[in-house]
């Protein structure tokens, strides 16, 4: 009889079991970090307190606002990158630099210019989140503008408005969804990082506060919460992405 359990779940379960067992011989685990059970208890306690809703809400709001800003900026950039070869060659090096450089060192600039409150986290998050949109959507635009569907529609004498509405937008949609998925996780990264460094509220703030107060099981609970938030968002977007790609079937020229 073959068990149809995902091997990944087995790995996770084994890991948790090992951790729990470690509590028996390791002082560090027993007294400082806590075992899965201890952390679980703290997590339950936290979730039932009203405090967490506030901090969760702060992070969620910063994420939402950051995302809106990231999408707006990203789309503007992608139009410049995607449509004209000229602007593409001008802007592209800047984007590559922005992508590979540790953006965390610009965080003080955001804090100094926008203050230590929400605005700096939103902006810092948007900085992270706009890059995948700019890059992926512009790649999508470039491939769509050059492909056979576009040419075929032009031979059928479509107006520019028709080309955009009937060909361009539906064809770019899959790229947009993929870019959104990455943008969400990157914006979250920026927001959390900002909260971890200097903040008065939010999940990242809680994380560092409990680290500083040496309340490690509580700290681990927050790590779990943030991870869960990221995971759920990613999962939802992956599902949407899969559906959109499927509906679009063959997206590229396929002889």
């Amino acid at each position, binding site marked *: 009889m073959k068990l149809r359990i995902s091997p990944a779940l087995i790995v996770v379960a084994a890991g948790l079991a090992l951790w729990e067992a470690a509590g028996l011989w390791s002082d560090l685990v027993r007294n400082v970090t806590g075992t899965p059970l201890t952390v679980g208890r703290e997590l339950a306690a936290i979730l039932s307190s009203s405090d967490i809703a506030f901090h969760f809400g702060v992070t969620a709001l910063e994420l939402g606002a950051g995302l809106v800003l990231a999408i707006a900026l990203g789309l503007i950039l992608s139009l410049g990158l995607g449509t004209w070869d000229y602007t593409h060659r001008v802007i592209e090096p800047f984007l590559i630099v922005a992508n590979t450089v540790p953006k965390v060192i610009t965080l003080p600039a955001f804090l100094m210019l926008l203050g230590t409150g929400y605005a700096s986290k939103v902006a810092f998050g948007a900085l992270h989140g706009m890059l995948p949109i700019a890059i992926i959507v512009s790649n999508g635009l470039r491939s769509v503008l050059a*492909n*056979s*569907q576009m*040419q*075929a*529609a*032009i*031979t*059928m*004498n*479509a*107006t520019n408005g*028709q080309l955009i509405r*009937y*060909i361009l937008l*539906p*064809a770019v949609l899959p790229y947009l969804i993929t870019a959104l998925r990455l943008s969400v996780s990157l914006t979250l990264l920026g927001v959390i990082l900002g909260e971890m460094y200097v903040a008065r509220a939010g999940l990242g703030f809680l994380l560092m506060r409990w680290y500083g107060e040496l309340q490690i099981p509580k700290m681990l609970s927050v790590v779990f919460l943030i991870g869960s938030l990221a995971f759920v968002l990613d999962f939802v977007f992956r599902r949407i992405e899969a559906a959109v790609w499927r*509906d*679009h*079937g*063959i*997206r590229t*020229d*396929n*002889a």
Partner: protein
Amino acid sequence: MTPSSAADRAVITFMNVDHAFGDSESGSLVPVVRDVCLTIEKGEFVSLIGPSGCGKSTLLSMASGFLTPNGGSVRLFGEEPALMRKHLGMVFQAFSLLPWRTVLDNITLGLEFRGVPKAERMALAKDLIGSLGLRGFEQRFPRELSGGMNQRVTLARALVLKPEILLLDEPFGSLDEQTRILVGGELQKLWEQMHPTTVLVTHSISEAVRLSTRVVVLTARPTKVKKIIPINIEGPRTGAAAAALEEEIWELLKDEATRAMLGDAGGNGGA
């Protein structure tokens, strides 16, 4: 009845067409087409055949207005091709259907662009769907269909607009031999009904002889017209007469194909 002059009958004219592809930055220009003169008359079915890399597709791009020749001119009904798109139907080799639309919605796309109301669109599509063996597939999506079926849909999409000029750029290139012959036959029947002036770019000599009224043999790069061979066979193009024509065309092409193969060491095939 006064006989119409050749000029009246001319639909597509290539006059001393020159073209080169190049990188203005690196300074290297590759001449693709040189001094091509060709007149295609109303109702003809002309095949353009030549070795890989010669400018067959380039000539077709010019006829559809996507490319302006560096030298000489291309005219459709005496006008610039880009202005004459409403008389044009075109079929590409590459997949060009919209994957997110059903077969029926793909076929009626051009009609939608023209603002034809839905009921009329459906009615116009109906006959072509029958003639091309697509009945029953109207609600399917392109990804569910084979390559051959997809090309039938692409043909239907072009023909439903009742174009006066039909341009086909190696439309059956990605199909296996048998499907190729079948769909080619369906195309021929439709051509006999609708009689658009047709230009077919192809690699296949037998296809050219089977379908066309005239075969234009092109040289290797830089492409010129090597010879024009009229196909005057009545009835189905099988048998000795057709074979003789195929032999003649092959003799002409052999030379050019070898030249293309040897001279094309760094170039890309299939211009």
